[in-house]
């Protein structure tokens, strides 16, 4: 776990660890004052960051199964697009996304996200 000094909160991009800390087709969480953020890594090594709360009944999306660029919620199997946070199929609802990027194998999360309050 990386405990971050408070000064980091002001940076535009915050280094939260390396890409390989997240398993392919898996997820890790980042704890923030506003709640947990789920960081997903897909099969093709892209990463996505979403609130770790399913729009259905708040299920922890980070605990679901990652497939393609989507996540299936562990509680009642809603499928949420990682690209736009929208529930797929007949379900409707949307999860807030955060900017996240990979640079030289490090995962950088939008600084604003780490200090944001619950949405």
């Amino acid at each position: 776990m990386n405990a971050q000094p408070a000064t980091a909160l002001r940076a535009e991009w915050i280094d939260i660890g390396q890409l390989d800390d997240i398993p392919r087709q898996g997820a890790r969480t980042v704890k923030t004052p506003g709640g947990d953020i789920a960081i997903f890594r897909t099969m093709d090594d892209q990463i996505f960051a979403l609130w770790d709360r399913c729009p259905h009944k708040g299920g922890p999306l980070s605990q679901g199964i990652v497939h393609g660029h989507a996540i299936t919620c562990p509680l009642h199997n809603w499928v949420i697009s990682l690209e736009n946070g929208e529930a797929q199929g007949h379900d409707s609802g949307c999860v807030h996304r955060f900017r996240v990027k990979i640079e030289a194998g490090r995962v950088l999360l939008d600084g604003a996200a780490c200090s944001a309050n619950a949405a």
Partner: protein
Amino acid sequence: MKSRLVVVGNGMVAGRALEHLLATAPETYQVTVFNAEPRVNYDRIMLSPVLSGEKTYDDIIIHDDNWYADRGIKLHKGQKIVAIDKAFKTVTSAEGIIAAYDKLLIATGSSPIVIPVPGHDLPGVLTYRDLDDVEAMFTSAAKGGSAVVIGGGLLGLEAAAGLRARGMAVTVLHLMPTLMERQLDTAAGFLLQREFESRGIKVLTQADTKAILGTTHVEAVELKDGSLLPANIAVMAVGIRPNVTLAREAGLTVNRGIVVDDGMATSDPDILSIGECVEHRGICYGLVAPLYEMARVVAARLSGNRQADYAGSVTATKLKVTGIDLFSSGDFSEGDDREEILLRDAAGGIYKRLIIKNDQIIGTVLYGDTRDGTWFLDLLKRGTDISGMRDTLIFGQQYAGGSPLDPMAAVAALPDDSEICGCNGVCKGTILLAIATQNLASLGDVRSHTKASASCGSCSGLVEQILTLSLGDAYKPAAVQPICGCTDLGHDDVRRLIAVKHIKTIPAIMQELEWKTSSGCAKCRPALNFYLLAAWPGQYQDDSQSRFINERVHANIQRDGTYSVVPRMWGGMTNARELRAIADTVDKFSVPAVKVTGGQRIDLLGIRKEDLPAVWADLNAAGLVSGHAYGKALRTVKTCVGTDWCRFGTQDSTGLGIRIEKFMWGSWTPAKVKMAVSGCPRNCAEATCKDVGVICVDSGYDIHFAGAAGLDIRGTEILCHVDTEDDALEMIVALVQLYREQGRYLERIYKWAKRTGIQTIKDQIVEDAEKRRMLFDRFVHSQSFAQSDPWAERVAGNEAHEFHPMADFVFGKAAQ
């Protein structure tokens, strides 16, 4: 008397034409075949896998000597025809054999072009056309050294990859700026070049060969810019030229190829021609698909059908280098009158481009992901108006609402000797033969004639697909329920194909069985993970990302995102030490709820994910291990007190329950498996509504199975009666193993039993002692890899990432 048909050239197309002809008019002709190559008919396009070592010559033979002998065909191997006498209707071979014909079929194929640079005739300058060329390359490669391949088209690149696989240092010279420029656009050509370079093959584009240097043998290749490339062999793969000399000298009309009409007749109506040597409507083809069309037409014509016509073809190219997926078809040049749809995924190495004109696809280039190639080609050929699906077109068929991919592809691709029915050892070839020779038309027919699918029935889907393959639309198979939207294959087909094709990873299943999505979905991935685990115990590396969260972290997720923890209590027995450890754990971690479950054990509810390893460590210390309350696995074996205490008990039901649980815990199953052992027919352990239940009686043990008390309520069926505990254990283990091998993912035992039949199961477990023993042994083998406490593994640090956040900014704030 039969008419005489003489065939000149025995390549791929002649062979195909003969097959069609014998199928439609087996008695019409006395057939004589001349072939310049001293061998039978083989699959020329598979020479590249032979060169790379992935196949042998024997693997690629299409018709062996017996094939000709059995059909009364005279094959002259190594006999080149040098003259045709149209007036007397004869052909003459180089060795002077003369054969008379009523109909003559010329299928002489084409020859590689050799550019006449100085040194082109040195030993060590090779071409790439037949087995002799491949053997010459083998010989050189065995000595090591370097090879220069001149020509970066399909053949040149396959040769280069093959020689590299054989261990040579390889350079490809290509005259144009990008590889395969006739089939690929610049971007895809570039990706291809990068892929070749990453395999250690040097690629020089815009490289113009000036001379091949050497005194007695090739030593180097010199380019026009003066550079010198050392080489032990130089392979010329710059193009092909139709073999027309024979036809031209006989006075037939010849342009670039032998000119034929739509009925494949040359300028002499008794002489027909097909294959790479012909020119049809101004086009010479160099790929087998259109040539096979010609073969069909010429066979129909020779059988007397005057209507059969060949109308030309649109071709598509695929490169056969393992690990490179590339597809192109049609016209992909740029122009003002056309638009394009492009998809690039650099990280995934994927490039797709569709060229559209007047709302129709006119060209396709796919690199990296070619699964939709055939679909795009089909749209192109049909001239389908794509305006309605334009937005999603590039993503392929699954998003565009087209008809699903051909589910037959995987079955069609199986070799004849692959086993379809595991129970009765019946191969694909046997089934095909029976269908053809005995006019079989239904699944029932195939079952009674070949025994395929007559036992467990799990291969029925495959047998039906084989029926469809041979009978076409005449056969209407029962609909198979696909696993999910990612495939058209059902559970049984996938399990069977995993076994016959020896597929050992999830990505390989998706590749080989043509999954429609890049990485499956939450429905198919857990199923595939289980099927692989069951098929290859000890070999398959479990994919935790393909498991539902409960099985990934070995606890049950709760509605608020916390977890519950249920340790095993063997047979429902516990003691003070275990209870004390549970109580201490509850205190230490402030566990909000403790409950006695319906499965005779204790559930600790509301534990934070981060605390799980520490909770387990404490429970482990008291000897408590995972109860798999979360898994598609053995759950509980409930027992009653039995002879130990009960005044009615007939046997040691508690002891047997514990013995079964200790023997079988840790095994993964298609769905959860719950058991119970009751000490007498009063049945206090509720054994008659379990997946497997035992009712002890004075004379021994009644074994029950296929009960349920969840979504459905069902009393069990009786499997058998046995006299001893040992026999009871063997029966139960064999039963569960059979279920592990045949059950569909998430299908409880009672549903499996209903599908396959109670009697079928009894036949295999109770009646067949040998099969029972083998099932038992297979279960024991798989248990040797499964019986390790997943909690202890995680306490020891396994999958640690699951239990810690990646970063914690709340802590950061608190520290402030």
